């Protein structure tokens, strides 16, 4: 057994200090549903474990005055689901997040952990990318903000510098007629890893799509923002031609792996199909929003 240390700092400054001081083999602990699995498998043996769940900025959900949201990076899926307003405004982000694991996993898993673990198949990430969520990052040299799609750099890696902690995710205010959705394709119906995951966020005014963002997971080394798919939707009435064009753009953006869960051809095709279905769900929700 390695000589591990565990610390649970009370403030963000202390957490950044402990994390930076721990060097290369320090690890942040949020819900632990990735980290402890990796520790038990012997893949990771941290020198210092920095538990961030005592830090207020990482564990609170705040609705801003202009009705955006700031969600702490370590807030659990169960806690976000209980929030009275978040799921009304961002049903797609919440459904992506709530798809992660079982009830037990939901009691602990966080958006920050899902993002920082760097899996291309992370279920909450395409929906956060579609939402235009911005990550607030705090490190030894101060604070910076980055769009969620810029954080992962490859399977299991992120652009966070040594000592940097993801603090929170900011979801922008939404105009009337906006909503979002997330769908994933898995071989089983529960507890499985996405073969493709698609998040769509859009705004509809007088029947016309005036804004859209598309995030796609599990089809490339990182979750993708697919701007061409969004462009095909914007300005349209989401008719068949627009959906076909967007689906084509979505498939064209894919650069997937071939494995037992799905071939390249299968993943590429399903990405287009899911884009259409997800757009239809988001559009239906937007009509009522």
């Amino acid at each position, binding site marked *: 057994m390695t000589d*591990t240390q565990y610390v649970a700092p009370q403030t963000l400054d202390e957490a950044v200090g402990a994390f930076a001081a721990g060097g290369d083999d320090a690890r942040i602990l949020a819900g632990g549903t990735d980290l*402890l699995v990796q520790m038990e498998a012997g893949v990771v043996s941290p020198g210092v474990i920095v*538990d961030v769940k005592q830090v207020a900025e990482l564990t609170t959900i705040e609705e801003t005055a202009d009705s955006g949201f700031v969600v702490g990076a370590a807030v659990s899926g169960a806690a976000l689901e209980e929030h009275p307003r978040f799921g009304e405004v961002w049903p797609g982000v919440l459904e992506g997040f709530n798809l992660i694991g079982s009830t037990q996993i939901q009691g602990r898993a966080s958006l920050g952990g899902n993002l920082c673990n760097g899996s291309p198949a992370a279920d909450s990430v395409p929906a956060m990318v579609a939402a235009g969520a911005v990550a607030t990052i705090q490190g030894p040299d101060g604070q910076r903000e980055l769009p969620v799609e810029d954080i992962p750099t490859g399977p299991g890696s992120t652009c966070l510098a040594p000592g940097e902690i993801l603090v929170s995710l900011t979801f922008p205010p939404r105009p009337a007629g906006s909503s979002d959705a997330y769908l994933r394709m898995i071989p089983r119906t*529960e507890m499985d890893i996405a073969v493709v995951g698609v998040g769509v966020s859009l705004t509809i005014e007088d029947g016309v799509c005036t804004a859209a963002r598309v995030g796609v997971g599990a089809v490339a080394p990182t979750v993708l923002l697919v701007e061409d798919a969004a462009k095909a939707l914007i300005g349209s009435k989401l008719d068949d031609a627009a959906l076909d064009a967007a689906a084509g753009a979505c498939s064209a953006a894919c650069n997937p792996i071939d494995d037992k869960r799905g071939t390249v051809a299968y993943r590429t095709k399903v990405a287009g199909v899911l884009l259409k279905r997800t757009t239809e769900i988001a559009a239906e929700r937007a009509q009522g929003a």
Partner: protein
Amino acid sequence: MAKIHVTTKINGEPIEFLCDPSETMLDALRNELGLTGSKEGCGSGDCGACSITLDDRLVCSCLMLAAEAEGKEINTIEGMAEGENLHPLQEKFLEEAALQCGICTPGMLVAAKALLDQNPNPTETEVRFWLAGNLCRCTGYDKIIRAVLDTAAEMREAAQ
């Protein structure tokens, strides 16, 4: 290696124990505290046999560090019966034979209780989804689901 001193509450009792920094809560319960009701089926969050509640939230104790228990309230299967009086879920599992080998049973009971504590009137679908992270190799699940639904119905009646 320096041990960590943890002050916590388990099944309502204030408890102090020592653990290694990377020791899981499941290992601390079983090896330090003699609470062997929580089982290790997988050690990776897949089977739910190690289910406990942490400040009333259902979690896998195999994916939690023992050190995280500091200042929290933990409930395990050992706290479910009151002395000799079994919890209605425990009674119903026995009555309706909702177990065979019994390895999954503590986790099933802890998880089912957490559901009924927050939703006294779940649908069958809600029970199945809630318990999707509790695997059972023996029963085929139907008897477990039925026992949870029947307990919920009886507890609602008793509460009237």
